[in-house]
C-alpha cells in the first residue's frame, strides 16, 4: 500500500492526540502516527516541525529537554490543559464533519 500524504489540518489533531498518552519527541511523534495508521500516513518533517512550533506558540504543548532512547539530548513535547481542551474541541468537530460526510456518501 503506497504511503499517503497527510491531509492538511488533520496533522495538528493527530499530534495532539498522540501526545495525550504522554510526552514524546518530534521523531517519535512522526513514528507513532506512522505506526498507528498502519503505515499509511507519512508525516513529512517539513510539515511536522512548523506544526509543532505553532502548537508551542498557541500554548497547547510545552517542551522540556530530556534524554532520548539513543542517549541524546532532545526536546520532548507535553500536552497542556489548553492543549487537552483544544483536542476535545477538534475531535468533536472532526467527528461531526466525518459523520456528515459518511452520511452523504452512504445515501447519495
Amino acid at each position, binding site marked *: 500500500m503506497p504511503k499517503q500524504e497527510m491531509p492538511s489540518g488533520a496533522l495538528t489533531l493527530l499530534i495532539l492526540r498522540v501526545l495525550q498518552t504522554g510526552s514524546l519527541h518530534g521523531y517519535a511523534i512522526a513514528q507513532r502516527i506512522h505506526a498507528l495508521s498502519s503505515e499509511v500516513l507519512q508525516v513529512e518533517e517539513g510539515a511536522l*516541525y512548523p506544526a509543532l512550533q505553532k502548537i*508551542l506558540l*498557541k*500554548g497547547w504543548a510545552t517542551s522540556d529537554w530530556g534524554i*532520548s532512547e*539513543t542517549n541524546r539530548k*532532545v526536546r520532548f513535547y507535553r500536552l497542556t490543559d489548553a492543549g487537552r481542551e483544544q483536542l476535545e474541541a477538534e475531535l468533536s468537530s472532526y467527528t461531526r464533519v466525518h459523520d456528515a460526510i459518511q452520511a452523504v456518501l452512504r445515501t447519495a
Partner: protein
Amino acid sequence: MSEFLRRLTYLFHRRRHDRELADELDFHREMAARSGGVPVGNALHLREASRDAWGWTWLERLGQDVRYALRMLRRSPGFTLAAVLMLAIGIGANVAVFSFFDLLVLRPLNVRDPATLLRFHRRGIEAYAFAVPYPEADFLRRHARTLSAFVSVNTTPVTVEGEDKPLNVNFVTANYFRELGGAPAYGRVFDPAFEQDPAAEAVVVLSHAYWQRRFAGDSSVVGRTLHLNGKPATILGIAAARFGGLGSGISDTAIWAPLVSHPYFVRNSKLLTDVSNESPGVQLWGRLAPGQNPKAAEAELRALAAELRKQYPAAIWEDERLVSEPGGFATSLISGGRRGTGAEQRDPVYPIFALAGTLTLLILAAACANLGSLLLARGVARQREISIRAAVGAGTARLVRQLFTESLLLALMGAAGGLALGTAVLRWLLAATESPAWLDPSPDWRVAGFALAAGVGSAVLFGLAPSLKTGRPGRRPGSARQVLIAAQVAASCILLIVAGLLGRALNHASKEDPGFEYRQVISLRPGLAQGSYTPARAAAYLDSLLPQLRALPGVESAALSSSPPLGNVTISAVWEMDGRRIDVGMNGIDENYFETMRIPLLRGRNLRRGDTQAVVISESLARQGWPASDALGKTLPLDKGYTVVGISGSINAVKFGDRDSVQAYFPIQEADRPNLFALIRTSAPPGTVAGSVATAARALDPNLSVEVQLLGRNFRRRLEGAEYTTLAVGVLGGIAQLLACLGLVGVVAYGVSQRTREIGIRMALGARPAQVLAIVLRQFAVPVCVGLAAGIGGAAALSQVLRGRLFGVSHLDATAYLLAIGLFLVTTAVAAVLPARRALRIDPLSALRHD
C-alpha cells in the same frame, strides 16, 4: 501566558530557539537515517518554515531591507542628498504652516487647566461685542453656578514712568494669577483677598520679559515704587518667565494691575460702574465647574442676562446671549475688543490657513513628483541589479518591498530635515515680527507627528509607483512618468499663478488712488477716552487744540474724525436696503474733513456745524443703495432718519482698491467726542511736523496718552504683510518651477537616449531637425498641457479664498494668469528643448550600429 507574550519571549530568545530547533532537526535526521528512512529535505528551508510559525519573519526581513537600503543610499551620496534636500524643503514648508496653526489653534495656552476655560462674548439680535461691561461681568460672576470662576481683563494704555510711549497695562481680576496658575518668579502676585480691601495700597505685577528689559533682571525692584499715569504704585512681584496669561491680542503683557484700581490709575474711569455699551468693558473668561459643559453655561448666562436686563433695559440687549468659545487657546485672544451691528465679522483664520496649507502641499507634491521621476530613472539604471536579485530567487513582492524601504528611509530623513527647517523658518518669522516670548515654536508631538505623516505620505507618493515599476523587471516605466510630469506642472503652475495674482495686487495697491490723499496727513489720537474725559470736557479740549494745530508751521488744515482711514478703528454696520445687505463704513466727521483728506464732494453740500440729521454718503453707496433713483434728499434706513445732503467720492479705506467699499459720513455725536482723532494735513514733510503736533496735544493736558501716526507710514505698513506673502509665494513658486524644469530636463534627456536608434533611422531617411525635435518632444506635450490645464483650473478655484484681499484685483485677473503662464511656458520650453537638442547631434550611422 498569552500567545502574544509567548511570541515576545520567542523574539528575545530567538537565537537560542534557532539553535535548539537546528539540534532537534539533526536528531530527527540521525534517527531517520538509522531506521533507513528517506533523508530529510533542505534543513535550512525547514528551519525557516518552522520559524515562520512565530510570525517574526517580517521583522527580520525589515532589518535586512533597512541595512540594504542604507548601503544603497550611502553608495550614491549625491542622489541621497538631493532627495533629502528636496523633501526637507517640501515637508519644511508644510511643517512651518502647520506649526503656526498648531500654535494658534491646537496648542493650549500655558495656563492652568486650559481645557475648562471658556471665552465669552456678547451677542444680541442685531449686535455683537467682544467686550463685556464690567458690571455685567461682575453680575454673572456672582450668580453663575455652572462656572466656578470668572477672569476679567481690561487693557488700557497707560503712561509709565520712564517710557516714551504709553504701555498697554492689563487690569485683571484679583483671582487672575491663582486661576491661571501664574506663580511669581519674585515677590508676590495678586490674591483674591486684595479685591475686598479698597484701602490697600496700589500694586502692580511686572511680566518677566518687561522686568528683564526695563530693570535688567534686578530682583531688588520688588517693593519699589513705579508711577503709572503719575500715580505711585508698589511693585508687588515679577511673574514667572513662561507665564503669558490671558490678555488682549497675541502680544507680551508688560504690566498687570488689579482691575479694582482702574479708577485710581485712570482718571475719571467708570469702568467698574458703567454698564452701557460705550464702556470699554472687559474681556471675559470663565472656568467651567466640574461636570458642567459649555452648553449648560451658555444657557445659564442667557437666563442671567435676561435677569440683569430688568435692571438695565437699555444696556443689556434683548435676548442677549453670552456665546462661548474655547478659552485656553491663542485664537481666543485674537478677537480683542471688536464690536458692531449685524453679523459678526470673524477673522478668516481657517480659510487663510487652508490656502497656505494647500500652497505648501503643492510644493511637497512637486518635490514628490520630481523625486518620483528621479527614482524611476534610477530604477532603469538598477535594472541589472534587480534582474540578478530576481534570478537568485527574490519574489516581486520582496523586491518591491525592498525598493519601497529605500524610499521610506529617504522620506524619514526628509521629514527630520523638514521638521528642523520648518521650525527654524517659523522661529525666524516669529522673531522678525516681534511675537511674544510665550508663542514658542518648538515642535510638540502634534508637529512631530505631522512631519512623520508628511514623510510617510510623501514616500507613498514618490516611492510606491517607481518601486512597483522597477520591482517588476521587464515592464517599461511609461505612463507613470507622464502622470508625474503632469502633477509637477500643475503644482508649479498653481503656485506661479497665485504669486502672479499677489504681485499684481500689490502693484495695483501701491499705485492705485485710494480716493483720498494720505501722504501728507498726520493722525493724532489725544486719548481722551482713556483719560476718562467727559464729552463736554473733550469738546472743550478739542476746541482749543484745533486752532493751535492749524497755527503750527507747516500745517495746512486740521479736521476731526471718529474713524480715520488707515487707522486702527473701523466702525461698520450692515444696512438692509430693499432686501440687499450693504456693509457700510461709518465715520463721524466735522466740516473740514473732506478738504483735509482731499476727498472730492461730487454733489450736494458739505456737512455744516450744527447739522444733526444730515449725512454725506459716498458715490458707491448712492449707486448701491439707490440704483434706480437719485440718492440726494433720500432718508437713510436708520431709526433717526438721516437725510442725504451730499455725495462724496468713494474711498478704499478698509480694503484697498475694493470698489464696492461704501461710506457714510455723519455729524459728530456728542458722546463720541472723547474717542475722536484729529487729522492734520501738512505742507511740510509730515515727519517733521509730527513732534510739534504731539507736543501741542500734551501741552493742554500732560496726563494724556497721546498717539501720533503718519498715514503714509500706516499705508506702507499695511502693504508690508502683502509684500511678505507675495515674496513667500513667489519663492515657493520659483522652487516648484525649478524642480519641474530639472525634472523635465532629466526626463527628456532620458527619452532621447532611449530612442537614439529610431531617431537615427529617421534622420537617415531625411527627417529635418524640426521634425526630429517634434518626435522627441511630442510625448511630453500631452502631460505638460494636461498639467497646465489642471494648474489653471486649480489656481482659479483656490484663489477664490483670496477675494477681497487682492486690493480690488480680480482673482481671475487675466494679466496675472497670462504672465504666470508665459513665464511657465518659456521656462518649460527651455527645459525641454535644451536636452532635446542632443537628438539633433545624433550621427545616423553610429546610431544604427547602436545596439
